[in-house]
């Protein structure tokens, strides 16, 4: 009951927002606009899915934006060198996974808080991307690559298909596998998890690796949409991903969060910025609105939890 209520409130807000925007702007409910919302939010959504598992363990990954940049650049360089699209995408995902593994390894071996490790990693991965690219974007990418970010499959944006597959996979991991259960347990009570004989370090590392892989994929989507490998891509995206998780009911204290919640959170943010564009609200005000929504969403969630106790 409690958990259902938790999912219900953000969902209701999303519906209300959707209806309100349909009434306020005649352009909102057009196939073109909705497809563009889907494409715009796909990158954040993919990153936020990984961030959800990380936050459920009570951790945080501030380096996902930099991972996105590094992975997108690496994948684009492979494409420029003549690799097929699939290989390029896999290379991007592999780079993301490696970055995540390194994060997880440092967090568990050095026993340093995730906030600090990934804050350092944010700088390192970004710096590496700038060093290997000399600060210059990679342009010579085969035109077929644009299908990922801009193409349609069965009349629906291809990124939406990818997002659905990733979301279902992460949902299954969280709710139906040992890894997911351990993520919740570690976030809810790490000591009790160690005492229950759970290999805690292994699972924490795995969680950051998954987050890295999804950021790598997001990097390839971003590269495909821009048709460039930008070493500076994804700056500040980590905060968007964290915001989506938090709006969707995830707790930075760990032990709480869901795929459905995160998707709703990401779409709320996507609709807000799309709606603001359609209604000619300035970019400056958009930031104020989205910031307020984050605080409001978490406040409502907290009030509800306090009442439940």
């Amino acid at each position, binding site marked *: 009951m409690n958990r259902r209520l938790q999912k219900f409130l953000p969902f209701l807000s999303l519906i209300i927002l959707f209806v309100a925007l349909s009434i306020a702007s005649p352009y909102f409910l057009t196939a073109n606009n909705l497809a563009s919302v889907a494409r715009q939010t796909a990158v954040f959504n993919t990153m936020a899915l990984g961030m959800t598992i990380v936050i459920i363990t009570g951790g945080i990954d501030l380096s996902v934006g930099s991972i996105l940049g590094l992975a997108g650049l690496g994948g684009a360089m492979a494409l420029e060198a003549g690799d097929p699209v699939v290989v390029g995408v896999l290379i991007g995902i592999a780079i993301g996974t490696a970055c995540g593994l390194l994060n997880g390894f440092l967090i568990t071996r050095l026993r340093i808080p995730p906030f600090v490790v990934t804050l350092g990693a944010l700088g390192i991965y970004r710096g590496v991307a700038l060093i290997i690219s000399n600060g210059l974007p990679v342009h010579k990418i085969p035109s077929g690559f644009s299908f990922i970010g801009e193409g349609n499959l069965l009349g629906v944006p291809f990124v939406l298909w990818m997002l659905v597959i990733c979301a279902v996979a992460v949902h299954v991991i969280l709710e*139906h596998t040992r890894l997911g*259960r351990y993520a*919740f347990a570690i976030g*809810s*009570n790490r000591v*009790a998890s160690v*005492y229950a004989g759970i290999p805690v370090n292994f699972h924490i590392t795995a969680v950051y690796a998954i987050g890295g892989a999804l950021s790598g994929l997001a990097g390839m989507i971003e590269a495909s949409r821009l048709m460039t490998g930008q070493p500076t891509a994804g700056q500040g995206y980590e905060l968007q991903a964290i915001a989506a998780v938090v709006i969707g009911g995830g707790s930075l204290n760990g*032990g709480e969060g869901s795929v459905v919640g995160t998707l709703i959170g990401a779409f709320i943010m996507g609709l807000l910025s799309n709606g603001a564009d359609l209604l000619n609200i300035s970019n400056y005000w958009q930031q104020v609105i989205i910031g307020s929504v984050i605080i409001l969403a978490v406040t409502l969630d907290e009030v509800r939890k306090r*009442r439940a106790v």
Partner: protein
Amino acid sequence: MPLLELQNIQKRFGGVTALRNGNLTVSAGEVHLLLGENGAGKSTLMKIVAGIVERDSGRMLWNGQEVFLRTPSEAAAMGIAMVNQESLLAPHLSVAENIFLGREKRTGAGRFGMVDRKGALELARHTIAQYGFPLEPEWPVSRLSPAGRQMVEICRAIHHGSSLLIFDEPTSSLSDTETDQVFRIVRDLKARGMGIIYITHRMNELRVIGDSATVLRDGETVHSGRLAEIGTDRLIQHMVGREVAQIYEREHLEPGEPLLEVRNLSVESTKLKNISLTLRRGEITGMAGLIGAGRTELCRAIFGIDAPQSGEILVGGKPARIRSPRAAVQAGIALVTEDRQVSGLALRLPIGSNVTLANMERISRLGFLDLKYEARAASELGRKMSLKASSPAQLAGTLSGGNQQKVVIAKWLFRQSNIFLFDEPTRGIDIGAKAEVFELMGELARNGAAILMVSSELTELQHVADRIVVMRQGRISGELPRGCSQEQIMKLAVMEVAA
């Protein structure tokens, strides 16, 4: 005129009635016991007195005047202070800083003065010395034992200049000597004319410290009066609402073969020295000792949390390398820690997840969880242990202390462990649940488990354990058979054994 009078207090939280008819009268210069099982409404009633929770209806009279307290500082201003069971201290600050937290002394005049560290230290030292606590004002609170923290709480409350002090189970985490110190303080405060409300679950404390008692059951005051006029059996009956013939009695079993042998174990970091101990199938080995004697530390060492410098551990007759809790769990060892909320349960997860946590292999099919099997197993164990919960999906954090303890035990039952280390298994749980926990331990022993039961409640050890091992300053100071006296146990716990 009584100091405090509560009449027909009612309080609901959402759909749950916490108090339906709370009545309590406390006079100056008396120690008034507040008794009742967990969930009876004691804490809620006290939170209303201390201004933490607002009442829905009923009257609260303070020196004959009706008052309505909205915040703890309003209560403090009137002279009501509470010594909390769960320490509400800032662990990174020093003892002195905690005592004066929120009421810091300043050097200069007015709001711009700096915090007067020296003065605070002096004053804290004076308060501590007055009661003979083994504390230094500079010590960080994070390094103190639960007993030490309790003492800081007491200093803090006394310093307020209160006329009514509420003690919420002050001795539940203390050793006997420390308990005596608390009693001395309480008597001293009483002699100074303060009113004292004292919540406890320890039945052998009642007459040592109390003058009168009020019993709450299901949110209602069911008895109130002088302690001299009522027997302990009657009081317990009021608390549980039924006859309690023999709460803890257990048949004696012949112990079987050794399941766990500890040989000459020493751990430098926790000052364990040369421990040898054997736990046998079907036997409950009691373990007594003062706080800090090394009982919890021994459990930690056996469970692979602290690495030993020397000695060995044998499981089922074979040497076992237990270097992590994971290895201990795989060897069939279960640890029921003294603080289940900190290290025993994932409070924000459902009961079902907690039950299966130590044995996910059993509910995994090709890497996927069989959630139906999990729900079934959790319900079955819950039924067997008469767990009071709506369903396996209920969050563990919403259960009462006794039921949380049952979930912890269920976790190890699901793991099919056969060596159980119980560290203060009845801490903070009410009498009815205590009896159920003992029954569970008895059944485990009957089914062939070896059990170590660490407890500071000597009466419980006497009734439940087959033999009692006593620890003192990191060593085992002796062993006593079933039927030994409390004096014998205390002697071993306090004094060096004659060679």
